[in-house]
């Protein structure tokens, strides 16, 4: 039998406020954002912190959404590969947003390269990089365009903590943790 207490205990110890696993839809994002906004209101969170968390949350969730959107409608691709996980917790006045999703192994190097570039930059360099990509970068059909990770790093003011775990011969699991301190 599935030990639900084990889940509960892990979530409790990490002060998880909200979590979700499954297919990421536009309506789901609207709901998650609404729930987190009212939770932060109830906690009487400082407007400044609330805004930062909200902003970073939007980018993290929309990264998941656009990633799912790019997966072709192929019966070879399992439901599992279309599914993602999201959690947000607060510990010692620091919020952490956790996301995880499958990624084709062939795309790992490219994403890792982009994350490493962002992580190598100072605050000022990130600002310049953001402006360059904003002004010159190609925009994808849906409006993404490589700005998300730069924005997350700028707004959170911290390095992007990531990991890739090989899952099978085709896929890796990509996890990203973003901390936002007060």
């Amino acid at each position: 039998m599935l030990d639900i207490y084990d889940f509960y205990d892990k979530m409790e110890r990490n002060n998880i406020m909200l979590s979700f696993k499954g297919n990421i839809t536009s309506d789901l994002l609207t709901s998650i954002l609404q729930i987190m906004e009212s939770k932060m209101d109830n906690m009487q969170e400082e407007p400044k912190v609330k805004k930062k968390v909200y902003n970073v949350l939007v980018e993290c969730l929309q990264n998941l959404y656009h990633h799912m959107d790019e997966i072709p409608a192929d019966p070879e691709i399992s439901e599992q590969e279309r599914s993602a996980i999201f959690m947000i917790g607060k510990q010692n006045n620091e919020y952490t947003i956790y996301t995880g999703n499958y990624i084709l192994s062939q795309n790992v190097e490219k994403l890792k390269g982009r994350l490493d570039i962002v992580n190598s930059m100072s605050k000022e360099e990130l600002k310049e990089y953001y402006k360059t990509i904003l002004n010159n970068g190609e925009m994808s059909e849906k409006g993404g365009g490589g700005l998300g990770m730069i924005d997350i790093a700028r707004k959170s003011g911290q390095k992007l903590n990531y990991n890739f775990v090989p899952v099978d011969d085709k896929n890796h699991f990509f996890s990203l943790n973003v901390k936002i301190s007060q």
Partner: protein
Amino acid sequence: MEAISIEGTPKTPTIKFDPSSGVLELKGRSIPENSIEFYKPLIDLLDKYAANPKPITNVNIQLEYFNTSSSKCILDLFKKLESIKNNGSAVTINWHYEEDDEDMLEAGEDYQAIINVPFKMIQIEE
């Protein structure tokens, strides 16, 4: 030219633009997943307006949040305003930000550095 008036939603801003007065307003949250589709009617209308703009074009931007997908569309919007300015209209972008919202002020300054149109940074008192 028809005026445009779009009511805001939790994910999209209120948009008002009346070509007969030259006043454009963008207010609220801009966090749609597909921002290109959302901004298209406004960009198209500005394209038409650019051919024969009013002597003064006043733009009020008062955004609470915007996502990176919108940031590209906002840049496109500002690039249109640049060409409207080049066609002889005195364009001003009034960029509103809430007190303490350094990120929003900085976002305005990022645009100011790219776009050749006068910006006014206006702090909203809480």
